[in-house]
């Protein structure tokens, strides 16, 4: 993360991606979105090239729009919970 500005921007993007990802009603999509977000950010953690960082941020922002839209739709059509889901599952804690 080259500059402090992009650093806080990346962290804010990470926060909102995780926030919206954990709102999927469907277990499989929720788990995937959270895992995918986490993996992608950790994989690109050491990235130094400013141009690459900018393109990754742009990609993340596009994904955020999709996650926002799809998690909302998922909530509208939320179906039953799977057997593996417990009432108080804290999805963000597992890793």
């Amino acid at each position: 993360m080259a500059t402090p500005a992009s650093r806080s921007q990346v962290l804010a993007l990470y926060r909102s991606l995780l926030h919206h990802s954990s709102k999927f009603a469907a277990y499989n999509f929720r788990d995937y979105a959270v895992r995918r977000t986490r993996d992608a950010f950790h994989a690109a953690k050491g990235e130094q090239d400013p141009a690459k960082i900018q393109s990754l941020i742009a990609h993340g922002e596009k994904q955020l729009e999709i996650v926002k839209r799809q998690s909302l739709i998922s909530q509208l059509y939320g179906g039953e919970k799977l057997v593996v889901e417990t009432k108080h599952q804290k999805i963000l804690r597992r890793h």
Partner: protein
Amino acid sequence: MFRAIRPTSTLYRASALYKNAAVSSPARVSMAMNFARMYSAGAGLARSDVEKRVLDILAGFNKVDAKKISLKANFNADLGLDSLDTVEVVMAIEEEFSIEIPDKDADEIKSAEQAVEYISKRDDAH
């Protein structure tokens, strides 16, 4: 004939009602007071309780060495968490206490103690 009887019966009934009312009125008052709940009274979290819950959240992270967990421990320097992990710790805290922490406040939280400090300032945490 009936009309002659009626006034006495109503009189009797009225007095009976009055008697009942006199007896039951204190009970009615206390009942009314029971129903008036004080919704505005904040529950308030005990500091020791908040501390325990925050430390439990940290203990739930696999990356964190359980022996190093303490209130003073800095997430980055002492617990070896990077900035991405810190975001996740703060989000777990948000979830635990049912609050939303705005970005600028979330960036300030760098140790369990600071988290406890912040939560004790928030009235809507529970």
